[in-house]
């Protein structure tokens, strides 16, 4: 396995479904906008998932709301908050009951044709757009 230096301060997101790491970086706003170091390990062997991605973000602490968006793409992901080179908090991501961000995949939805906010509500495994009332899989919204 490739070795990547441990981070002193920041966030490590583990157990990301293989191939979804780049989307997660983008979702967290940790792509080109983030100035600290970012490590993305893809297709790492995993007992739990077979293959997984890992993301390490130096000096970056996304809000819980943002972290929970990860669950839309990769519900098994785990988050480790690192301070002074130690894991100070471990948490699982949870799919939110309501979403105020994301993108409705329906091109005829008003949210894709006006400058306005988004709103989705969870129904079982799916999310319903409050506006066009159509239901979508979580990963379709991000």
């Amino acid at each position, binding site marked *: 396995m490739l070795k990547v230096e441990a981070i002193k301060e920041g966030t490590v997101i583990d157990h990301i479904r293989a191939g979804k790491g780049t989307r997660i970086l983008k979702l967290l706003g940790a792509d080109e906008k983030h100035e600290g170091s970012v490590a993305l390990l893809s297709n790492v062997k995993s007992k739990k998932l077979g293959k997984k991605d890992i993301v390490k973000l130096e000096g970056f602490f996304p809000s819980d709301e943002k972290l929970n968006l990860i669950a839309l793409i990769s519900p098994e992901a785990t988050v480790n908050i690192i301070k002074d080179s130690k894991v100070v908090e471990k948490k699982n991501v949870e799919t939110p009951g309501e979403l105020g961000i994301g993108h409705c995949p329906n091109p005829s939805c008003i949210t894709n044709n006006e400058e*306005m906010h988004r709103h989705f509500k969870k129904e079982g495994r799916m999310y319903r757009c409050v506006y066009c*009332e159509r239901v979508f899989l979580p990963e379709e919204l991000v």
Partner: protein
Amino acid sequence: MDIISVRDIDKKIFNEIFETAGEMERQLKSGRVEKLDGVVATLFFEPSTRTKLSFQSATVRLGLRYIDFISELSSVKKGESFADTIRMVDGYCDIIVMRHKYEGAARYAAEIAKASIINGGDGGNQHPTQTMLDLYTMLKEKGAIKGLNVRMMGDLKHARTMHSLIYALAMFGANISITAPHGLEMPEEGIKEIEKKFNIKINIEEEPDFSSDDVLYVTRIQQERFADPLEAKRIMEKFRITKDALKNAKKDMIIMHPLPRVNEIDVAIDKTPHAKYFEQAKNGIPVRMALIKYILEGEHA
């Protein structure tokens, strides 16, 4: 109070509106309609004949005034945003009846406006007042909706009237059968949602058997939905309601249609006791009067 989607309307509200619609019919017959005060704006960004005219007629019959808007001649043409148009009209009226091509436009308008919003159709999503008059027609003709065998037939994929209606029929406990040409079926997730929510089984039939139907609700199949015009012709012929197609139907089965009809129901049917589609359109007046009254008079206003 806003009327956006059948998902927001419970049986109690439907029943109150049906009761008031009955009273409106009696008042219309007697020539003495109790007058109300207020202004209704009809804001149709998309073409409409029945919905717009019947709302305007209902408004006038209640002694209210309406103000109208022609999208092509308005500030929308100058690039005004939808939200700004709603904010502006909101200051001129008590109720906005609107139709828009984008799904969710009425819900968004309701968030912006203080005036009550009535959704007169938002893209392929909802048309709740059509559902109200559909159910009212069934109640009037058949006495009850619970246990009624209702077949919905035609383009069940694109027709917003059908999406609103099937939900409300399930809520009222009708036995629902659906028949649609291949490619124009009702979206599967919609069927599953309704079956789960109301604990019912929707009967899907490729070849319709009208023999046990109490209500046959037909909707238009548009030729432009098919890539091959020959296929379109074949399907439209197959789904056409003729006297011959109805030979096994119950004598008191009623046929409904949201109109406009093109050729999916043979004009020869119009003279039979089955035909209730023009009655249905006429019921739009008392039902929409009742809805306006409900909104203006209720504590929910």
